[in-house]
């Protein structure tokens, strides 16, 4: 059933995403063309200005694209489970957790597609369509800087740091999505102004999460207090690295715990306190 739900969730928005992805690819071709023209007409100010403007817009378009995924996923969840379409979705013989999970997985599928599109766009603009296969060169440069030239870290430390950063990046959209689901579920508990209350809940949950993580971070940064209170002090690499890795790993665990909590919370509310009025 989960697969079927995902199929319909993908079908619902594929045209919208198709347009956005096609627009991004066209934009990157335009930017590549302008780049070539700027190189041919070196002194031409018009092409230079156009190039800079388009480059800025291109970067903004990426932010808009990734933000759009969250917005579309939120609208889909709201319309499909909380508004009129919920009258159908909540009467099909499917467990509530699958209804939520299908939307969650669909969001990740579109996010992954957006990352692929972003990679292709970057390849077009940079004139290196196969840049992904040349990452080892970039990694070597990064590694040499990290190990020898400036920081004096080990290759293992760099790999670990990179891995942790990737996990944080993968978890972030999922965390935001489940935070939104939980807010909408809490709004559903009220009889009037459900959407307004859901927005308030979103901010209330955010403040709660920040306060809680702030408290944890205070305990964890005890080693760093001497450095943080003395502006003149230079943080030794090992201490800084340890602090950063601990913070990131804590952040991952904290995010996963909250994600599980939000998922279970939303599921419980929609299955036990469903309130489609």
């Amino acid at each position, binding site marked *: 059933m989960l697969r079927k739900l995902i199929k319909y969730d993908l079908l619902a928005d594929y045209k919208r995403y198709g347009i956005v992805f096609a627009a991004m690819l066209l934009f990157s071709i335009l930017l590549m063309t302008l780049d070539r023209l700027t190189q041919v007409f070196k002194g031409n100010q018009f092409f230079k200005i156009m190039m800079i403007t388009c480059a800025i817009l291109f970067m903004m378009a990426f932010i808009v694209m990734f933000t759009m995924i969250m917005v579309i996923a939120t609208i889909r969840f709201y*319309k499909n489970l909380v508004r009129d379409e*919920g*009258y159908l979705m909540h*009467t*099909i*013989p*499917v467990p509530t957790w699958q209804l939520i999970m299908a939307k969650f997985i669909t969001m990740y599928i579109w996010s992954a597609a957006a990352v692929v599109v972003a990679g292709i766009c970057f390849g077009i603009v940079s004139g290196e369509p196969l840049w992904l296969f040349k990452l080892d060169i970039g990694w070597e440069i990064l590694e040499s800087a990290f190990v020898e030239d400036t920081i004096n870290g080990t290759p293992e430390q760099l790999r670990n740091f990179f891995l942790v950063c990737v996990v944080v990046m993968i978890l972030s959209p999922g965390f935001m999505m489940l935070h939104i689901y939980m807010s909408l579920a809490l709004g559903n508990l009220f*009889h009037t102004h459900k959407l307004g209350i859901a927005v308030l809940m979103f901010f209330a949950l955010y403040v709660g999460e920040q306060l809680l993580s702030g408290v944890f971070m205070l305990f964890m940064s005890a080693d760093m207090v001497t450095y943080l209170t003395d502006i003149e002090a230079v943080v030794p690499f090992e201490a800084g690295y340890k602090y950063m890795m601990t913070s990131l790993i804590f952040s991952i665990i904290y995010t996963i715990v909250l994600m599980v909590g939000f998922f279970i919370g939303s599921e419980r509310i929609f299955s036990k306190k*469903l309130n*489609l009025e």
Partner: protein
Amino acid sequence: MLVECKNLCKTYGETIALNNINLNIERGRIIGLLGPNGSGKTTLIKVLSGLLTKSSGEVTISDKEIGIETKKVVSYLPERTYLSEWMTVKQVVDFFKDFYDDFSEETAYGMLERLNIKPGDRLKTMSKGTKEKVQLILVMSRQAELFLLDEPIAGVDPAARDYIIKTIIGNYNENASVIISTHLISDVEKILDEVIMIKYGCLVMHKTVDEIRDEHGKSVDALFREVFAC
């Protein structure tokens, strides 16, 4: 017994929508759920369909608590359009086929063809009335045990009402029951076996149409006007 409600209550804050409802519904019946606006008809139907959770009491359908198992045997038509606008008729038929084991694709396409609704038609290009007909066809194309129809003939022209009533009669089986919530009693009276009247969330009457005629010497419509006179 197909449906059993024991001391069923549903409250919204301090408002009592359903107050101590005790109800038994057998198989093979067409039941009119009647009452003025705000009497609790829709709330009762939503509780039976699983869209609202009861505040207290017991509700069972085919001896099962409301949940996934009852959703498999309940076919629910809400008072509003619940189909996604982006879908085509074929996609909604596929959707029902994918999620309901008792859905008959042939029955649905047969009825759609008679109304000249094509599988490729998009829901967003349809009128409200046509969308309602598509919904009714989908709901009645299931071999469900309980059909819950919330105001199926409200807001449609008399010709469409006749079509809807014919569709209901033509598609339910003897093993199933149909609960129809409506204000338009005279239009459905001729097909009803039983009548349930609700007022301020309380059950005021549950009788067969024959009992009403014998005991009160009136039609259901006339009795409704008497019971709910303002």
